[in-house]
């Protein structure tokens, strides 16, 4: 327990070590989380695009077969 917020930040003189540890740890975790979400979103939009273009390609072909 700390007496003041200043004491809390100072961490008994070890502030730089402790805050650097926590900062790098949570920084790394947040980057990992964001990267994981962005990768999935990118792949999903690529998939949707590909499926949409496939549908566009296949529909006229299917129609022309029907008319024949």
């Amino acid at each position: 327990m700390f007496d003041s917020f200043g004491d809390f930040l100072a961490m008994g003189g070890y502030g730089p070590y402790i805050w650097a540890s926590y900062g790098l740890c949570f920084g790394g975790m947040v980057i990992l989380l964001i990267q994981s979400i962005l990768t999935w979103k990118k792949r999903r939009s690529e998939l949707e695009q590909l499926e949409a273009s496939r549908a566009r390609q296949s529909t006229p072909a299917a129609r022309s077969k029907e008319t024949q």
Partner: protein
Amino acid sequence: MHRFANPSQFMRVAEAMLPWMVALCIPLMAAGLYFGLWASPADYQQSETVRIMYIHVPSAFLAQGAYIVMALGSASFLIWKHPLGDLIARAAAPIGCIFALICLVTGSLWGKPTWGTYWVWDARLTSMLILFFLFLGYLALANAFDDPARGDKPAAILAVVGIVNIPIIKFSVYFFNTLHQKSTLFGDLFSSGEEAGASGLQQPDIAAAAAQQGSALPPSMLLPLMLMLAAFSVFFLILLVLRLRGELATVRLRALRAGLRAG
């Protein structure tokens, strides 16, 4: 149980659990930070630097846990040719890699004020560094080929062979001379109470009592450590599901593109 081996079935269950895991992770993490940074006492030897333990130990635990997940996934891929095993391994590898790095960095930042040095080439630190390199090696190998399916097998073999490193990390603090303190939670399994008391993580009077209870930590320090271990573990599962989703989409994309080229 067999239907969970179907990737889309597996993902349906995993994604349904995702909001619950997030709802569990946030309060656990918040409570862990509150008790870890504010409401727990300073150590009598290490003073405030002991607070680094609450992220250092969980990240070491997760890095090794991620490696075990990666190796088991790879083994099931090699033995039963199950694609989900490879996808789980590919999803777990970057997570483990980052947590191994976090463990090494927080360990260095803890070592400087307590040991007087950022790094020593002893068994525990070196075997942890090797774990980090194994993750890097796996990622490099799995993504080395233009056709990613060709990287599956060599990477899986590396993951399975590399598992020998896990017990080395675990026992390195018992079999070799090291600056690294003994196991915080399971010290009693390998050493007597007196030795556990010498690990320097508690007040002397509490040490003997705590050691008898099976842990070298007093409850005020055990609580934030357990909260953080739980929070980190749930966070790992969330990341695993998110990355698995990305890996599955990548596989579908590849199959679709191959189909387009072939057609």
